[in-house]
């Protein structure tokens, strides 16, 4: 009996040894999404004009810029770090605290980096796939990255009145806005999927790989079509 937990059932994906637990969390997240998050996101989308939502997105992205900058530096990408710094400086000042993306209009495109990507850049393996309650798909490396980012975030070391409220509003807006962005994508996924859990896992793993490689295709990583693997 004690050994039963150590046996790796043949039907589980190698990258997902915790599949039964993940599926349970996924089922919980799906219910939470359908009953709470999606209706709220749809209401937010209906009552908030598109330019206002764009302003919110710009503001939130600008707040995240210092994190992106640190990760650009940690990955040894000075050009990207300079772009992030320039974007932050321009948007915080000329862009009214980041509400307007003036830097983009000036030709400085935004990009994302996080500590999970930085760890991957330095060769840390992803570890098992995880589904986090309410946060959704992740893996051990990305969870460690997220936890560290939250712990060392400048917000953790600053003191100001209404800090807790600010943190909560930021989290709520971020979650809602991200959900609005994925409304159409999720509809397409649910329409075409054979198994929503596997589908989301596959999307997450491919998208993370793409983000880590900054969109550059690693030709050696592409699977063969003519050979049976």
């Amino acid at each position, binding site marked *: 009996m004690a050994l039963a937990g150590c046996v790796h059932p043949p*039907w589980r*994906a190698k990258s997902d040894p915790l599949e039964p637990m993940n599926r349970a969390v996924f089922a919980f997240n799906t219910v939470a999404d359908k009953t709470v998050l999606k209706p709220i996101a749809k209401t937010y989308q209906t009552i908030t004009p598109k330019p206002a939502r764009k302003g919110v997105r710009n503001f939130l992205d600008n707040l995240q810029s210092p994190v992106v900058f640190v990760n650009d530096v940690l990955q040894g990408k000075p050009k990207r770090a300079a772009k992030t710094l320039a974007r932050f400086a321009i948007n915080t000042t000329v862009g009214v605290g980041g509400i307007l993306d003036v830097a983009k209009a000036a030709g400085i495109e935004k990009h994302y980096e996080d500590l999970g990507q930085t760890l991957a850049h330095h060769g840390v393996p992803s570890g098992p796939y995880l589904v986090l309650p309410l946060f959704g798909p992740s893996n051990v490396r990305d969870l460690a990255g997220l936890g560290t980012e939250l712990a060392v975030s400048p917000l953790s070391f600053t003191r100001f009145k209404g800090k807790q409220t600010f943190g909560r509003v930021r989290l709520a807006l971020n979650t809602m806005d991200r959900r609005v962005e994925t409304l159409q994508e999720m509809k397409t996924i649910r329409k075409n999927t054979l198994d929503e859990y596997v589908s989301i896992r596959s999307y997450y793993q491919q998208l993370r790989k793409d983000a880590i490689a900054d969109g550059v295709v690693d*030709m050696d990583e*592409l*699977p063969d079509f003519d050979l049976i693997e």
Partner: protein
Amino acid sequence: MTIKRKILAAILALALPLASPVLASEQAVTFVQNNVSKVLQVLSDPALGDVQKGKLFSEVITQVTDVDVIARFVLGQYAATASTPEFERFARVFRGYALGVYQSELSRFGNEVLEVQSVQERKPGDSVVLTRISGGALSKKSRDVKWRVITIKGTPRVVDIEISGVWLSQHQRAEITGIITKNGGQISAATKMLCSQSKTCTVTG
């Protein structure tokens, strides 16, 4: 004369291995330029009704891709153990499913201009063509789409498409092999599940 011939032979010996991959890549680029635009035109033609569009899309995409090769790929490790009738049943059902997915994924484009940005060769007869699709419904935005082109029996064919960071055939393989492994290696389980998604499908044998 002999020295000239030797020099010429040496130049050719150096140049030929370099020249053939370039030609294969160029073939992939031309193939994408000529055929993918046709697919986008069909999807954005306002004169076509849904049924007619679906039929025409199926015809055009059949010329662009090789669904049998993709069907074998999405079976992953199970392709090796599939009997011929088992594979044929799966491939028949998979064709309908794959066409639906391609149509749904590519329908987000319409009236756009497709521009080849670059081509990268993985090995002779296996290239990735990077395109930028802009204009039309995308308005000021543009989207990068990558096309994996493989030469099959002397003809280039698209076997995978990457849209917004996701390779469709690789994604389908994750789903299909997930279903088969969960059902003790039974390919018929995937065939039945694909069939249940289609209104017109029946699995026999």
